[in-house]
């Protein structure tokens, strides 16, 4: 699945520099009544430079919590997250340390993650200001996500859901993302757009030298774009490996069950037996 990307960028991306190392990460939530819900239980994985990693699992398996911990939005109960050799600290009221601003997130709902009262140019400029190096221009970024340059002065409501997600991606790239985290970035889009936007995220990351951690419950789309897959179940990693290997020869019973449950659009009327 290697792609020879033609370098269509009008700016020179920084050299790839993402080494994410998650070691024995545990995140727990306190619940009413003194109970503790361990959402992520001692997981370890790596994301290397220029790699697209899919994180899959069913709701409640801890995949979003993992993403939030990497962004510093959750305080780990145990273990550590290292990004380019530095330990990621939980976000406080202070400004986030510069070196962690190159971890950028694209959220599920572009309607909520873009400010409805500001033009998209302004919002992409916000991203550019966080860039530690030379940020590409707003026009270059819009080219990258295939939005017409002339649309820069418009407001989010003037765009469709898919276009808004493209704008959110442009904003993340503007900040000089070394690691892009997509937390179900395609779940609220129309079916015909999902694969296309996911493919765009992969292409954008490959072109700009960023790594991508793509969180989704849509296994078919993950297969399309991920080099490596991590399968999670109730806070644990049950299996991880190269995408095609997991698809062709899933070792764990849970992975087999998950893959068998995907209904295939083959017109034959087979209901998955799980």
């Amino acid at each position: 699945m290697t792609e020879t990307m033609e370098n269509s960028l009008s700016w020179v991306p920084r050299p790839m520099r993402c080494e994410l190392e998650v070691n024995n990460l545990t995140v727990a939530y306190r619940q009413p009544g003194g109970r503790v819900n361990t959402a992520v239980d001692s997981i370890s994985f790596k994301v290397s430079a220029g790699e697209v990693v899919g994180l899959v699992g069913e709701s409640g398996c801890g995949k979003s919590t993992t993403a939030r911990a990497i962004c510093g939005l959750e305080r780990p109960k145990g273990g550590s997250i290292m990004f380019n050799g530095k330990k990621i600290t939980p976000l406080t009221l202070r400004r986030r340390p510069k070196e962690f601003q190159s971890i950028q997130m694209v959220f599920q709902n572009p309607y909520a993650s873009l400010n409805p009262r500001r033009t998209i140019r302004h919002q992409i400029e916000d991203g550019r200001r966080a860039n530690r190096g030379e940020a590409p221009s707003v026009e270059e970024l819009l080219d990258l996500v295939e939005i017409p340059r002339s649309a820069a002065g418009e407001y989010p409501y003037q765009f469709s859901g898919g276009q808004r997600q493209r704008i959110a991606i442009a904003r993340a790239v503007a900040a000089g993302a070394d690691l892009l985290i997509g937390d179900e970035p395609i779940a609220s889009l129309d079916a015909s757009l999902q694969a296309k936007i996911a493919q765009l995220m992969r292409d954008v990351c490959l072109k700009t030298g960023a790594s991508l951690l793509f969180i989704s419950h849509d296994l078919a789309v993950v297969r399309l774009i991920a080099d490596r897959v991590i399968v999670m179940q109730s806070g644990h990693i049950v299996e991880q490996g190269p995408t095609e290997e997991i698809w062709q020869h899933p070792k764990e019973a849970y992975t087999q069950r998950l893959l068998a449950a995907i209904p295939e659009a083959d017109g034959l009327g087979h209901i998955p037996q799980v």
Partner: protein
Amino acid sequence: MSEKDMSENESTRTAGSAATSGTDESVALSIRDLNLTIDDHHILKDVSLDVPSGKVMGLAGESGSGKTMTGMTVLGLQPEGAEVTGEIDYHGENLLALNDRQMASYRGHHIAMVFQDPTASLHPMIRIGVQLTDHMRHHLGLSKQEARERAIELLKLVQVPDPEGTLKRYPHQFSGGQLQRIAIAVAIACKPDLIIADEPTTALDVTVQAGILQLLRHLCDTTGLTIILITHDLGVMSALADEIAVMRGGQIVERGSRYDVIRNPQHPYTKALIDSLPKQMMERRDQAAQAGQTAQAESGETEQPSEPQEGGQHD
């Protein structure tokens, strides 16, 4: 075409079970020239559809295509101020001509609905026992005890564990999949011959989704229930629907058997929908890679299949 034979065998099997259900008509619902306008916006345009009895009729399409609006209009739940013309024929009765009171005697009784999100469609502060028996007592005139007994039967039918305990509990005490089973039990409680399932598995995990699809197929095969399945997920459509109508911009652009619509789509919009599936994109990319080209399989395509490049209106 052994695959096609299989799919045909399956449809004849379903048709056979429909014949035993008591209705001798082959059409459960017939929509004729349905038009719906809200403030000069033409939402549905000349929608005509025969829903075969005892089968699963799929309505596919993207958000805004009018598939949900069609389903809601069948139940008389179109938005306030909507102007509706045309005819919805249900066993000889034009549903559009009924007044509110008459419509209420059909809704939830002869025609029922299953919604996308059971946590929203079930009342959070009323016990399952009440939500599952209230309409039975009203529509079927059952006593409290009779309704309770039927509720337990229904919960067994939809495979919810511990039916008696379930009646005493509240919605928040169940998982999404169990709640959707309960919502299906609520829908089939008054023995409707038609249910409209609007994205019934979209909010569920894939493994749970498989169970719900099996349940719907089972109900259709064993009780002769007719289902209008509304979904944008072509995988779900291919698993459950016997026939598929594809909607776009308030119109039905293509209609045919499940196999034909998915394997051999005629309308450019349907083709664009099928082409945008991840599997098809992978195949195209692999082919492109084999052909020694760069794998930018997607470049040059339009963002939305609602504007298919090939243009041209069929039909």
